[in-house]
């Protein structure tokens, strides 16, 4: 048992020394915590960023923004946080603190239907057609809450919610139900449909609800200046172009 413990200690020491040794020179490892809706876009941005900065390795941790905010508070390994909601970023700003916080993208809502559009949907109002089979993400899931908020603002809550045939666990399940033709329509983020084989119906800006994505460097980030460089890259022209390619909009000017 003693020998085992000794071995375990040596192994642990070996593991931790490999992660800390890089800290002595200029840091080359960057850890980014990002909302799961950013997965495809950030994987592309990560590859581009690594190509532009030889020797640098970016590691992503994708998840629900709320969960990530909790992890950042307790872990201390994150350099950058890209959140799908301001509230989650507020949590991190309080503890352990952030710098260079700025909004970098918006994600709006879109109606999707199967390619042959069995329900005949071409506007938000069409979702109120009696008998239409609509799927939404469940309440408490951000995209589901945004969709209900939008319907409420349009004064369509009652009629449209009566057509809901399923409250799905996340946006991917909504896309799956619509894509397979089981449901006539669904509401998801515009970034969800960049690769999905579905028909989309744009919702006009005055009826739409936009989610704003903030990004920031975590105070005490192990990667130091590299974290700032990454944030600058994401908010710069190249980052914005990649985000647009994956269905995200530019940040709203805070005027």
């Amino acid at each position: 048992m003693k020998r085992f413990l000794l071995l375990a200690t040596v192994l642990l020491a070996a593991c931790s020394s490999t992660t800390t040794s890089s800290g002595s020179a200029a840091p080359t490892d960057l850890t980014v915590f990002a909302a799961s809706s950013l997965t495809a876009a950030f994987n592309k941005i990560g590859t581009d960023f690594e190509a532009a900065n030889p020797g640098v390795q970016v590691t992503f941790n994708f998840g629900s923004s709320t969960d990530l905010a909790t992890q950042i508070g307790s872990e201390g390994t994150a350099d950058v946080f890209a959140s799908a909601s301001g509230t989650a970023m507020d949590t991190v700003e309080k503890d352990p603190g952030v710098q260079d916080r700025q909004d970098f993208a918006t994600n709006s809502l879109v109606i999707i239907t199967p390619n042959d559009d069995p329900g005949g949907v071409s506007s938000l109002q069409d979702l109120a057609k009696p008998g239409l089979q609509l799927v939404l993400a469940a309440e408490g899931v951000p995209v589901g809450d945004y969709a209900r908020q939008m319907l409420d603002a349009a004064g369509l809550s009652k009629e449209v919610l009566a057509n809901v045939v399923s409250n799905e666990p996340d946006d991917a399940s909504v896309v799956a139900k619509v894509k397979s033709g089981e449901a006539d329509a669904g509401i998801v983020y515009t970034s969800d449909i960049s690769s999905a084989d579905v028909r989309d119906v744009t919702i006009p800006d005055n009826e739409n609800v936009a989610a704003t994505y903030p990004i920031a460097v975590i105070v005490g980030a192990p990667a130091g200046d590299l974290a700032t460089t990454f944030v600058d890259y994401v908010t710069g022209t190249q980052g914005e172009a990649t985000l647009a390619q994956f269905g995200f909009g530019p940040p709203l000017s805070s005027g």
Partner: protein
Amino acid sequence: MRRRLPPPIVALAAIGAVFISLPAIALAARAPWGRFAEILSGPGAREALRLSLEVSLAATVCAVVLGVPLAWVLARGEFRGRTVLRALAISPIVLPPVVAGVGLLMALGRRGVVGGWLYDALGVQLTFSTAGAIAAATFVSMPLVVLAAEAGFRGLDPRFEHAAAVLGARPGYAFRRVVLPMVRPQLVAGAVLAWARALGEFGATITFAGNLQGRTQTVPLAVFQLLQTDQEGAIALSLVLVVLSIAVLVALRGQITGAS
């Protein structure tokens, strides 16, 4: 005099017992006892409980009505492909439920291989309906009936059936009056396990039938949805499911394991 069990075995058994019972104990420890009545009398919880009972009982009936004859064919029939058929009949036990759900969508969805015809010709749609939830629960629980019943049929001496035949009983009569009564314990065990499996079904249901209060939202789906908004509610409803399943398993313990 009672024999002492070897200490290493007792130690491992103790760890196993703690591991398996800890989640139930933790749920009880964290349960919002003060809000219990309020949560369980809310419309969401009440409808979920009612729906869970309906769906699980209906699925058990379907699983027995279809599964017992299938088990009989597997036990007594001699035909090519029997091994493959048995593997297929049991496969839902090992399939991830979400895969079962996708399979059911492809088969019985309104654009599915069979479901497309049901929808176009008869106007029947299983997805997003209580019937769909029952279909999903039947699919995942029937293998437990097949396994238990086939074991029972195989353990039965064929001479009983021969004797019944010699005495003039038609095969159907012999099956009902001679075979079925003799394998009753296995059938009950299979049905109870199938019911328990149907009661806990989540993945295939949400994938195939969707999640709508009062129509397809059974207790496991309601627990999942409450987790997003009201964790205490989720714990209270989970605890009801835990207590219900343990109560039934305790009541029927002899039927399932053969222990007293």
